[in-house]
């Protein structure tokens, strides 16, 4: 359950979107408009102003943790990790402040400018570097000195623009084409390696009465994954990074090629995707009505633990251009960050060291088998076959991207790309108009 939470504020969770509703604060803010915001941050800042008493030396006292893991399973996992931490460190107590993950994401700016918890849960990528460069996150380079089992790639992913570390990774999960082994066996399908093979497979699946690719984009972000995969295959990893950083033009031939390729695949996608959540789309895969589904491995949450999850596996998104290959993948990392001025700095750093350790991560991945540990020393013997495959898959990848809404500015991702991709899905004909508009908006946003 960890996964979807992390996926961004628009994250669908297991409750139907309609019931989940809006937090009162959101409604209030929406109703009152921007004016309220004028006062809010400064008020919050005033409350949290003098939290800067950090006790050096031996870590004692209480460490507070801001957790966005509000669903039952991950919440219990976090609790278990913190209990284990307290047991190992007498004198230190932890206090988990669980916030509904949507609200957490939506209020993150005010939260961090007010009096944030000593340690809070966040994601790697642009959003991590952003808060670090805004001076809203604490430097945790000390913690990294004693952190064993983390690869250099993870260290890079935890490093801010100034070369210091601001993030301690906990778990991650790959994006890939998921399918049920039993379905592929029944019809005698094999995993496609190239896009042409995939199209042939899609035609066959349609003949067999299956939807080739399950698809749901009601919440706007799942289709970003499709765009990312195609972009990585058509233009490669470096272009993805530059495009997300605003350095490449959206209305160039390269992005157009991505949308063109996608348009050629749309008839393989499940129809009417804009009214469907990812959970509903995952159910069509689970019910063997769809052949494949492009999603993060959190799709396993829609499958019963045990035999049904064992039946679930995946293949890498097929190669589009043999010059580019297929060795770039997406595997977003979730982890922890520290407040700029934690009330208990020594304790917070101790805790961060612990959550990065194999011991702590073993507890998390056991509770939520749709994610894998970032620490190499974590116990992989207990992994499900899906987790083992994920480890192998991530291991063989040459470059690992995060995800569109983690690799680029969130204002651009949510206010420009979500409507743009949804309008592409509705009307895939006017690609030129679409990408020109994206570029204009990008210029305006990245200029600010």
């Amino acid at each position, binding site marked *: 359950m960890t996964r979807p939470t992390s996926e961004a504020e628009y994250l669908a969770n297991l409750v139907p979107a*309609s019931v989940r509703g809006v937090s009162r604060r959101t409604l209030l*803010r*929406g109703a009152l408009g921007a004016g309220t915001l*004028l006062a809010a941050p400064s008020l919050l800042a005033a409350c949290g102003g003098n939290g800067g008493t950090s006790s050096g030396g031996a870590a004692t006292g209480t460490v507070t943790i801001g957790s966005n893991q509000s669903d039952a399973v991950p919440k219990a996992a976090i609790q278990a990790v913190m209990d284990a931490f307290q047991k190992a460190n007498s004198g230190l107590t932890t206090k988990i402040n669980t916030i509904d993950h949507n609200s957490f*994401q939506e209020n993150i700016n005010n939260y961090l400018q007010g009096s944030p918890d000593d340690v809070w849960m966040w994601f790697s990528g642009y959003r991590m570097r952003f808060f670090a460069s805004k001076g809203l996150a604490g430097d945790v380079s000390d913690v990294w000195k004693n952190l064993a089992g983390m690869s250099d790639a993870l260290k890079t992913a935890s490093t801010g623009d100034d070369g210091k570390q601001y993030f301690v990774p906990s778990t991650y999960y790959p994006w890939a084409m998921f399918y049920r082994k039993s379905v592929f066996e029944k019809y005698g399908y094999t995993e496609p390696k190239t896009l042409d093979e995939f199209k042939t497979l899609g035609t066959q699946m349609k003949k067999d009465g299956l939807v080739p690719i399950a698809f749901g984009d*009601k919440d*706007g972000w799942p289709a970003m994954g499709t765009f990312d995969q195609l972009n990585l295959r058509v233009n490669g990893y470096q272009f993805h990074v530059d495009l997300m950083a605003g350095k490449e033009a959206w209305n160039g031939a390269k992005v157009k090629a991505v949308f063109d390729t996608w348009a050629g695949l749309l008839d393989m996608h499940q129809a009417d995707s804009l*009214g*469907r959540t990812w959970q509903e789309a995952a159910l069509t895969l689970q019910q063997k009505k769809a052949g494949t589904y492009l999603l993060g491995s959190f799709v396993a949450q829609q499958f019963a633990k045990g035999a049904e999850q064992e039946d679930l596996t995946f293949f890498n998104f097929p190669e589009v251009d043999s010059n580019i290959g297929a060795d770039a993948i997406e595997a977003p990392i979730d982890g922890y960050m520290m407040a700029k001025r934690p009330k208990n700095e020594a304790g917070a750093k101790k805790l961060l060291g612990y959550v990065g350790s194999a011991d702590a991560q073993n507890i998390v991945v056991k509770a939520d088998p749709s994610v894998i540990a970032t620490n190499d020393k974590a116990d992989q013997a207990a992994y499900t076959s899906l987790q083992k495959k994920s480890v192998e898959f991530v291991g063989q990848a040459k470059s690992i991207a995060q995800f569109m809404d983690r690799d680029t500015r969130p204002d651009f991702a949510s206010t420009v790309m*979500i409507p743009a991709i949804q309008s592409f899905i509705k009307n895939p004909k006017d690609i030129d108009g679409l990408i020109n508009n994206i570029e204009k908006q990008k210029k305006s946003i990245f200029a600010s």
Partner: protein
Amino acid sequence: MSTQTTPKGIKPKPSKPKRTKYKGIDHLSPVDRVVVSLMVGIPTLLVLWLVVAPAIGSVLLSFTNWDGIGPISSAKNVGLQNYKDVLTIYPPFVPALQHNLIWLGVTFFIATPIGMFLAVLLDREVRGSRVYQTAIYLPVVLSVALVGFIWQLIYSRDQGFINQVTGSSIDWYGDQRYNLWAALLASSWRHVGYIMLLYLAGLKGVDPTLREAAKVDGANERTTFFRVVFPVMFPINIIVFVVTLIESLRAFDLVWVINKGRNGLELISTLVTSNIVGEASRIGFGSALATFMLVISSVFIVIYLRMVMREQR
């Protein structure tokens, strides 16, 4: 108002009867002045602080590129850039404007009249009118989030009631061609009950002798309603009018719970929210959108005020 407060001024104080001379109906003693200025001043300050200042703040912010982080002084003045962007390169804006007007139109010309019509029917003491009343009013006590969810069960493409019964596979909440109307139906379902109850309460208060008199004069049901009852209910009509306006201008929650106001359900309020609230924090840009909302609302507020003023005259 002044006629109600001044009598206090002319009441002579028993202890010093000679000091307080009657100086005319407009005269206020010092105490009265303090009381009056407090009674006028405190609400005025509250309105200034809670309504006017934030509104002006929004307008001012709309000329900046503030991202909500750091002091507001770090915001850069970008002139009319945000407005230019809204009007030229922000694709959801025009649909949002249209949807807001459609929302207003449907609520005003369809949902409200239906609610009033139901009230008139129920006022005729039909058998079981309490049951109908309760049934029609019931949606009003539900939270809008719940209303959205209930209709989701009906509209869902794969598992929904409508598609199960009719065998169609229309994606009611997802397909742009239908989802605005689907949302309006859900919203009207709730609105009708509200208007029905308001209007019914008003109808119960109409003096029955008026109807009898109309009957004696030979007016039929229709004439009685339109020529006698409806005009008598002017205050209630105003309330219904205002409630309808408020409900449709603040249309937000239902659409937000359906799909956060995207893909055919754009409303200005949802655009403001998705730009300002959340990680996006395009506060300047969102404020520009909010200013458009303010202008639109002002038009209707002016209409309303003119109606009320005319009534008072």
